[in-house]
């Protein structure tokens, strides 16, 4: 597994954890990149908690930039990766 694959896998795992923290009963259900949020039976506020948990985990803001419109776990991963990339660039710029 190369570095990018490791990051992708780690972000996916973090998203799974966030979903299962909001709805522990989903522990028993396999989650995958293509899993659609609408198929998980999450209410709108539960979805907002998933976003909150991801913001907490990565120290980034998804909501302020209206980036919480993702429909699948893969799309959520892309949002997180984009924000992580931006954060890294800002850190490099600062040094």
């Amino acid at each position, binding site marked *: 597994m190369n570095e990018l694959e490791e990051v992708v896998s780690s972000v996916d795992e973090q998203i799974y954890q966030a979903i299962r923290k909001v709805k522990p009963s989903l522990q028993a259900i396999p989650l995958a990149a293509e899993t659609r949020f609408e198929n998980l039976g999450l209410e709108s506020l539960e979805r907002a*908690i998933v976003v909150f948990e991801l913001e907490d985990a990565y120290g980034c803001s998804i909501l302020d930039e209206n980036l919480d419109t993702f429909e699948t776990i893969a799309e959520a991963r892309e949002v997180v990766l984009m924000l992580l990339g931006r954060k890294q660039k800002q850190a490099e710029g600062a040094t």
Partner: protein
Amino acid sequence: MNSNGAPHRVVITGIGSVSSLGVGARPMWSNMMDSVCGIRPTRVSSGGLEAIFPAAQVSGYDPLDHFTADELVWRDPYAQYAVVAAREAMADAGLKAGDGDPSELAVILGSGGGGEHAREDAFVRLLVDRKLRANPVLVPKTNLQASVGFISIEFGATGPSFIVSTGCAAATHAVAQAFLVVRHGHARRAITGGSEAPVMLSVLQAFQAAQVLSTTTCRPFSRDRDGMTLAEGAGMVVIESLESARERGAHIYAELAGVGMSADAQSSVHPAEQGPAQALRIALDSAHIRPEEVAYINAHGTGTKINDRVETAAVKMAFGDHARKLAISSTKSMHGHAFGGVGGIELVATLLAMENDVAPPTINYLGEDDDCDLDYVPNEPQPRRIETAISQSFAFGGLNAVVVLKRDIEL
């Protein structure tokens, strides 16, 4: 109005409780009969700070015995206790979700603080850890009426449903409101009582700063008493019109014969005897009961110097010479002070006192105090015939609520 055009008589047909004396009304009563104290040195920590206070946490309680992990994401302890006690009360009344017309079932509860645990966690997150965003579940978890919502959903109750928040008197005020709702025909039945879960660092420190917390234990009406002890728990009853109870052949614990409410209009913190005495007189009048008929009072009895002195004076003012013949106990000495829930717990204790003809004790009692010279049922339960009893609660702000219970419904 009933078929005669008179207001409905209201009876109690189910009881439930969660407290430091156990999960369930009967375990609580059994511990009361053994003079068990649920108050213990309790370690609380938050935001990197830690302290030990005497307090009464719920014993023998595992949330996962009562709720799914998904449900617990949304339910702070105060709401969990409310639901558990309501389930017990409904089962005890022989009722389940869907029984009867849903619009005829009300849910009227008391709580002083709502989801205090979630609120303290949020304080730490936002003000100590300096995170920018609060958990989206914070509002649904902390709002005071969450307990009412969960119970109305669980039992499909679509009748009048609301929370009453008058601090230490909230559950008794809630029962008084539920009584009025059923008495005047806005619902045939109600789940009523209250719950609270305030045993945490911020709340304990607030009450310590107000100089009302005991550093030892709760010893109401006793010499050397030094304050109240905070507790968690819930007490619930099912009330219904007498016609409703008779139609379905329900077991009737007692008639909720009358209620009295008043305000001292004196001080935001210090109680005055006129207010509670007024509430007592109104309650007796509304129940058409003479003071001499009352055998037992489950007192507010917080264990603070001033409450117990003023409460004693109020009872003397309302009952005259009969005050000396009353058995008066504070069961807070055993289950602690669960603020907006404690009136429910004490109502359940009062009903079981009537059922068993035993006054539960005021434990930790060391001896008579100059200001408190009535019969407080010291340390041991006291068998006596209890046909008529009172449960009373008084809150900061001088807000008072009293309920009168009568066992013989034929009278």
